[in-house]
């Protein structure tokens, strides 16, 4: 009797100890989880903060107001360079007329200003013979200084802008002829080698065209493959082999698809290099496994009773699948497709082989026009020596992240909207 009581007490104590240990273990595990999540969130915040702090200035651009005399004779002769030089000389009357001084003056505004003046006249020929105040883009060094990215306290030889230019910027500021304005050309132009003029529209359109090709090719094929494999294919060695291969393809490095695309689409089919159609086809190869796998999972998640009930009422197998199973599985397939598209949007490696990492100035107008894509544009700008491209790179990353956010948000929305409860 006493011995059992003792053993009860001791086993009670042991159980209590065990319980304490288990509770401690649980708390520890939760702590690890919280630590892991906060580390991930911390990295994300650092990443976003560094991108945004570098990139937000890319959405504004320093502009300078010139008083331009659109001399009819000079326009007739096409001497826009002289027109620009005259208006710059009027703005800074202190500057000499030596070649070096003239070059320094021309270096205050963007190298593309001459073309902008010509385009202004072409858009509105009535302007010839009048004097107008025109806002033009400042050159990269002026822009970088005005945005506070260049330290004026450094000795003259160590900064990319001369003392004379600093004095001119101060004079412009006093006259109210220099200002930060919204960077319209960033959203309305293609690539340029002048950072102040470089725009992202060409890359956005290129990405959109390539993704459209990807969607049109991979979505139907992917969903049909999934339907066939789930609902119609006999379970045998061959279908199992196909399944394993599809799962494997999802893990193949994307550059391999690029090499395949180069060999097949460009060399055999003769599709144009650097064009959205060829890039889109390669991306669709890459996206197919993602769509197939997620669509199969979505179809499998629909209870078999749906199809059975339909067939019990006389529907054919095809009718049962297309009228009853697929609509219920739609949110899952759509989510898979959108996530596949988002992956494709961020892909550069296979497109390198297809020649889409290229300098393309004109905004592509069709599927066979040369074009580049958003991540390729980021890559090209990140490697450019001019200072202004640093913020353009970050700004382009913000735009890319924005598109990814919208696409993933769309996936969530569609899932919510079409989700059916049963």
């Amino acid at each position, binding site marked *: 009797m006493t011995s059992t009581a003792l053993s009860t007490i001791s086993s009670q104590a042991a159980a209590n100890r065990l319980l304490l240990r288990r509770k401690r273990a649980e708390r520890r595990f939760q702590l690890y989880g919280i630590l892991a999540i906060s580390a991930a969130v911390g990295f994300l915040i650092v990443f976003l903060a560094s991108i945004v702090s570098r990139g937000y200035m890319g959405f504004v651009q320093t502009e300078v107001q010139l008083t331009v005399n659109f001399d009819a004779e000079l326009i007739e002769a096409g001497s826009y360079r002289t027109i620009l030089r005259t208006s710059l000389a009027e703005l800074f009357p202190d500057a000499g007329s030596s*070649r070096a001084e003239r*070059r320094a003056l021309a*270096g205050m505004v963007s*190298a*593309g200003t001459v*073309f902008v003046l010509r385009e202004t006249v072409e858009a509105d020929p009535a302007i010839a013979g009048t004097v107008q105040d025109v806002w033009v883009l400042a050159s990269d060094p002026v822009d970088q200084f005005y945005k506070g990215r*260049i*330290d004026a306290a*450094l000795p003259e*030889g*160590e*900064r*990319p802008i001369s003392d004379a230019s600093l004095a001119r910027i101060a004079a412009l500021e006093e006259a109210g002829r220099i200002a930060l304005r919204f960077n319209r050309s960033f959203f309305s132009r293609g690539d*340029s*080698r*002048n950072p102040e003029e470089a725009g992202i529209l060409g890359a956005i359109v290129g990405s959109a065209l390539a993704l459209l090709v990807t969607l049109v*090719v991979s979505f*139907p*094929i992917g969903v*049909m*493959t999934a339907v*066939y494999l789930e609902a119609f294919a006999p379970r045998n060695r061959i279908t199992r082999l196909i399944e394993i291969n599809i799962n494997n393809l999802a893990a193949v490095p994307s550059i391999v698809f690029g090499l395949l695309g180069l060999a097949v689409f*460009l060399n055999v*089919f*003769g*599709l*144009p*290099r*650097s*064009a959205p*159609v060829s890039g889109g*086809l390669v991306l669709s190869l890459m996206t197919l496994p993602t769509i197939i796998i997620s669509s199969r999972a979505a179809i499998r998640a629909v209870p078999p009773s749906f199809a059975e009930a339909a067939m019990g009422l006389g529907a054919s197998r*095809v009718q049962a699948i297309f009228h009853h199973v697929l609509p219920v599985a739609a949110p899952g397939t759509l989510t898979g497709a959108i996530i596949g598209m988002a992956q494709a949007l961020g892909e550069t490696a296979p497109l390198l082989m297809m*020649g889409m*990492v*290229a*300098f*393309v*100035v*004109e905004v592509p107008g069709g*599927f*066979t026009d*040369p074009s580049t894509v958003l991540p390729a544009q980021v890559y*090209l700008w*990140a*490697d*450019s*020596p*001019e*200072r202004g491209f*640093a913020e353009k790179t970050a700004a382009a990353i913000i735009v890319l992240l924005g598109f990814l956010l919208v696409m993933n948000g769309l996936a969530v929305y569609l899932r919510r909207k079409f989700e059916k409860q049963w």
Partner: protein
Amino acid sequence: MHNRLVAAVFVAGAVVAAAGAAQARDQINIVGSSTVYPFATVVAETFGRGSDFKTPKIESTGSGGGMKLFCAGLGTDHPDITNASRRMKSSELEKCRENGVMDVVEIKIGYDGIVVANANAAPEVQLTLRHLFLALAKQVPEGNQEGGQLVDNPNQMWSDVDPSLPNVAIEVLGPPPTSGTRDAFNELAIEGGCKTFPGLKAIKKEDKNRYKAICRGIREDGAYIEAGENDNLIVQKLAENPNAFGVFGFSFLDQNRDAVKGASIDGVAPEFENIATRAYPVSRPLYFYVKKAHVDVIPGIREYIGAFTSDDAWGDEGYLTDRGLIPLPTDERAQFGDNAVNLTPLESL
């Protein structure tokens, strides 16, 4: 349904393919070196905006990759021009001719300096080619002396290389072996320093491969850090670490003088004038090559070459010099300018 759909997609693909192939190209296609890319793109943009031709499309594939695409054949599927940060090799010209690209016009456009730079906050150093060899080569003569046995590079500090250099660990950030900049650096700087040892130079006559392995081999023990192709990244890292040196193109030094400064080599500072006069020892020529058979077939090639070789672009005060291109001496410019006008093809290399 499934079959019909697949068939439809293939038909659509074939139609697009046919359309693409049948369509004549009205835009110049350029491939090649990432070092020439910043210069060629400026010319292309100016050319495109100032003329009625489309702006040429330029891919940055590297010199070797560009040659491969360029020499793959004639016709609109193949590029018209390739840029190179080194001269075409005779094997590449042969490959071109095998594939029907018989006439290739060579145009040298200028020079690019390769600089060894460190942070502005760091002390200024005077380097020599010999210093660079002793600091970065895989194998050096024992005791850093002429006649010493070749040993795996034991130099850990710059002061081990030469007492006049600072007493800090050797840490050099530079381009990876796939880069043309690295090739040129190995050939001009490391081999240049290697040649200052008559004993090593003599190996060239006996065994060319061994000579190359010794005189162009970079150490792999962590003193030379391959920092990727992105030179902006190297500049950023130098600014953060005053003990490190970086190897990159002159235009990146020119744009970042508020963060880094270039070390003088053999007593010559990496300045524009010194590279132009060829006094600075680590500089290399830049080229582009044109398929003569494509001229007058693809519209604008002749005019693009003209724009590139105009005084406005490649002249002593042309806009390319603003981007860091070192112009050719006057006689060379006249010679290659003639080439550009007459489209004189390469005879042999």
